């Protein structure tokens, strides 16, 4: 299967990774190799085979609706690259 440059760009945008133009051919080549490895899956007969999302055959445990910890804002925000007045700052979000 061909991994064209537009697919690389679109995928990189979805993943929010700024790939420089110059890297795109090499990345396309590598992705093509990886998808080539994966391609053999298509030929496997799986009619009626259940999907397996998880190794455990367990049910989701439930937590009691009881308030814990808090307030740890100072320590939780200590690694924030930009914060003011208890808010994380980002470039203006345009609605």
């Amino acid at each position, binding site marked *: 299967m061909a991994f064209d440059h537009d*697919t*690389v760009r679109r*995928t*990189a*945008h*979805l*993943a*929010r*990774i*700024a*790939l*420089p133009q110059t890297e795109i051919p090499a*990345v396309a080549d*590598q*992705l093509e*190799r*990886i*998808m*080539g*490895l*994966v*391609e*053999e*899956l*298509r030929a*496997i007969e*799986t009619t009626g*085979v*259940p*999907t*397996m*999302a*998880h*190794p*455990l055959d*367990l049910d*989701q*445990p439930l*937590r009691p609706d009881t308030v814990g910890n808090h307030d*740890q804002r100072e*320590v*939780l*925000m*200590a*690694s*924030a*690259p*930009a914060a003011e007045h208890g808010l*994380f700052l*980002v*470039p*203006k*979000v*345009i609605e």
Partner: protein
Amino acid sequence: MELHEFSLRELRQGLQERDFSSVELTTTLLKRISALNPALNAFVTVTESKALAAAATADARRAAGEDGPLLGIPMAHKDIFCTAGVRTTCGSKMLEHFVAPYNATVVERLAVEGMVMLGKLNMDEFAMGSSNETSYFGPVRNPWHTDMVPGGSSGGSAAAVAAGLIPVATGTDTGGSIRQPAALCGITGIKPTYGRVSRYGMIAFASSLDQGGPMARNAEDCALMLNVMAAHDPRDSTSHPAAASDFLRGLDRPLQGLRVGVPEEFFGAGLDPEVAAAVQAGIAELARQGAAVQSIRLPNNPHAVSTYYVLAPAEASSNLARFDGVRYTHRAANPADLTDLYQQSRYEGFGAEVRRRLLVGTYVLSAGYYDAYYRKAQQVRSLIREDFRRAFAEVDVIVGPTTPTPAFPLGAKNADPVAMYLADIYTIAVNLAGIPALSVPCGFTAAGLPIGMQLMGDYFADDLLLNVAHRYQQETQWHRARPPLQAREA
């Protein structure tokens, strides 16, 4: 024998008999780290003063009459486990300055037992790699031959334990990341049954595959660690209610009558003849001890790598979305707008291999490809699990090589990601099924590189694997061999 070669049992005895204190032991190992780590690069962070303080606390607890198998014993964590107050990088520029305000459950449990953390161990970035070359903090070198890779992603853990910088370490295994470096560095490491060891505070790569486990110089030390590490954790929905067990209890059971299966698929093309010979000799030793060896088939095992390289990147593409430059990660300077902030921070913060896998994962989940890749891989995952189910109806343990080759030179597989992925060809199926597996040293190549033998068991047969490995190590000396590092010490 020198202090840095002691097993956990020997260390405990020395501490009990006051041959040395935890502070003395810790000081000795910290010195060894400062002498040898520059050549190995196994540690990303050494926490000297915190370690000495923890050792002093352990000594005080012992003086107060307390005792325990891990009290006062030094160790280090793979830098994927969050440690309160000590930075946790996950081998990435993205988290170069991240200091978690909380401990991973595993970190907390071992600390409560009085273990002394000496620092954080180097690893492939976000655990994505099989050679430890994808770390932002530089490659780890194999103590047996410093031009060779230690394996990955828990390469720092394997190298540090093999080099005697620490007696035991934690690792994580998503597709072989404990077993493959254990094999390449000549140590013992177990990937427990999925759900045994809490994933809380362990930075996720692929949630349905990730499992933490111990890496040590013998099976008994692994059992001692797992006794504390394995426990049900209400903070992890995927933690098994019956996770805890006493892994020491059955350690000495004789192997008489043990049914050993040897899968044909693990001895095909691509297997290095020296590795094949060493593993066959290991199997012969099990037979000598009374095990009944038979050939088995795992027909879907050849699909494991392709299945894994759909599912693991898919989960990773979502798990790593939180590293976005907003709350605690690297942030690109002067972003033009919000999208630019995301895209530049993630381009700069992630290395090439991580970016590649995020792209693969994003692609296989995207509209129009989900059924062809993701759903298909989930079905093949079922088939792989079925293979093991069938096999474990006939045998107790499956044995084969851990890796197709011994350690390879740094840089050897960097040009082709797929060549690197095939280094995990024998370890991946275990993660897909969620069963336990461990690697024990079983020989050396002519060039002096360690070889690992892999033991795989049914769900919750972790204790059986440790038992088999322990009996094997009672009759073999491979795990006692130490790399020739002394000469380079100052």
